[in-house]
């Protein structure tokens, strides 16, 4: 039986037309780029975004102070948040009802609040409510960032724990490990391998959220990247500080992405580092 085909409109085959269409798109794209490049006033753009003089005067403080502060605040917040999230996730899966309720309420509450509100509450609410408590600025940032991150990370960790096959826990129990020991030595390490990508996401989000530390006020030495960029805007003409500060964020986040890929390959399904025997 012969296969009926629709007659080609232009006398050209479907595949040839598609190929021609792709070629046309390339040509249009190249034209747009050329026109944009010709029309743009490159001197003006460089003046606005990449003034070499301004770049030169921003260094090295932008790295030695601002970049370092961002990294330190993020690391503190992530470490605290991750620990809190692990506790919350285990509470959420506990057989003890009140643990589940407390953890559930905490997660629902804090993942629904804007991070800025959390910073304001921790930064000004706690000193107001507890006049005797004198929180150091770094501790305040650690608490605020940790609270913001923990609500999300708790759910991520819980998902990771649930993704570990039940047979792993059963095997550990059958060898005489208690539920807690089996969870900590067998289940949690596998859960963290599974949730490495979303956990890296969370770390990158916290890197950017650390910019909210500005609401707490800061001396020059305490400024993180965004605040440093903003105050530099008032000192120098143009938007160059924003570009420089932006690139500094990428200096943090892109290596994190690379590290994540490395770890994933290493912990991959077959363990990666197995012997060659």
């Amino acid at each position, binding site marked *: 039986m012969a296969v009926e085909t629709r007659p080609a409109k232009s006398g050209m085959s479907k595949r040839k037309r598609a190929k021609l269409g792709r070629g046309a798109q390339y040509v249009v794209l190249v034209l747009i780029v050329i026109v944009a490049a010709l029309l743009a006033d490159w001197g003006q753009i460089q003046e606005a975004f990449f003034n070499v003089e301004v770049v030169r005067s921003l260094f090295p403080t932008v790295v030695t102070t601002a970049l370092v502060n961002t990294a330190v605040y993020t690391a503190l917040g992530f470490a605290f948040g991750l620990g809190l999230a692990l506790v919350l996730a285990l509470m959420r899966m506990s057989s003890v009802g009140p643990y589940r309720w407390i953890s559930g309420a905490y997660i629902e509450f804090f993942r629904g609040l804007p991070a800025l509100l959390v910073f304001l509450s921790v930064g000004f609410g706690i000193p107001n409510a507890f006049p005797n408590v004198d929180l150091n600025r770094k501790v305040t940032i650690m608490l605020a960032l940790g609270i913001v991150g923990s609500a999300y990370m708790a759910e991520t960790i819980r998902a990771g724990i649930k993704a570990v*096959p039940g*047979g*792993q826990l*059963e*095997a*550990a*129990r*059958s*060898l*005489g*490990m*208690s539920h807690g*020991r089996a969870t900590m*030595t*067998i289940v949690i*390490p*596998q859960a963290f*391998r599974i949730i490495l990508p979303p956990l890296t996401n969370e770390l990158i989000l916290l890197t950017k959220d650390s910019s909210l530390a500005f609401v707490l006020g800061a001396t020059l030495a305490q400024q993180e990247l965004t605040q440093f960029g903003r105050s530099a805007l008032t000192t120098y003409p143009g938007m160059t500080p924003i570009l420089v500060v932006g690139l500094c964020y990428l200096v943090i986040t892109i290596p994190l992405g690379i590290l994540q890929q490395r770890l994933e390959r290493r*912990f991959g*399904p*077959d*363990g*990666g*580092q*197995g*012997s060659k*025997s």
Partner: protein
Amino acid sequence: MSDVKIDISGLRKSFGQLEVLGGVDQRVEAGEVVCVIGPSGSGKSTFLRCVNLLEQPTAGRIVVDGMDLTDPDTDIDAARARIGMVFQQFNLFAHLSVLDNLTVAQRKVLGRDRAKAESVARENLRKVGLEDKAGSMPGRLSGGQQQRAGIARALAMDPDVMLFDEPTSALDPELVGDVLGVMRRLADEGMTMLVVTHEMQFAREVADRVLFMDGGTIVEQGAPADVIGAPQQERTRGFLARVLDPTHAAPED
């Protein structure tokens, strides 16, 4: 004096309304190899999983090596450390090397130091023919190798009894023999074994006793030559006809 290793009486297990075990009594003596056969859904895996309390029995008593596991005062973790279990899906710890799979419980449960645990682990890997795989990750092993590593992991705890839950059901046919060979050698060495299996040849040759379960009870039991060779019960005959000659079995109504 006969040394009873496993003593089960009046064992019942229900999942909600569904009764899976309807009163099972069984005694296994030291060095005995008991194979449990039966159709799927007969309760044989649940029966085995009750013996180390991976399933909590609804009623009944389970005494293993003198320890009453159903007594709430019994330290269940200490009891389980002396009961080896081998799973259908192997359940090797995916994030640990084969050697670490064998040492982690020795060290954390039995408190053996690293050197002692590793020497016990290597000795048991040699037993199952995997001494050259100590450094491999489980994912790199074939199913048969994983299951033998699973057996070695259980043996490294020096158990009094070994439970096998369909140990060859997830294996490619050509890999079944390696695992059964290891189990046969273990039986020859005098290990007390309770084995849920579909391998009739193994049950016939290695078992001291065969239990046929159906509908949550033991329907027939005795020497393999009797239960498999000359079954008395209609249900046993029907099941064996299906298993031993599957191409001629009539579809069940």
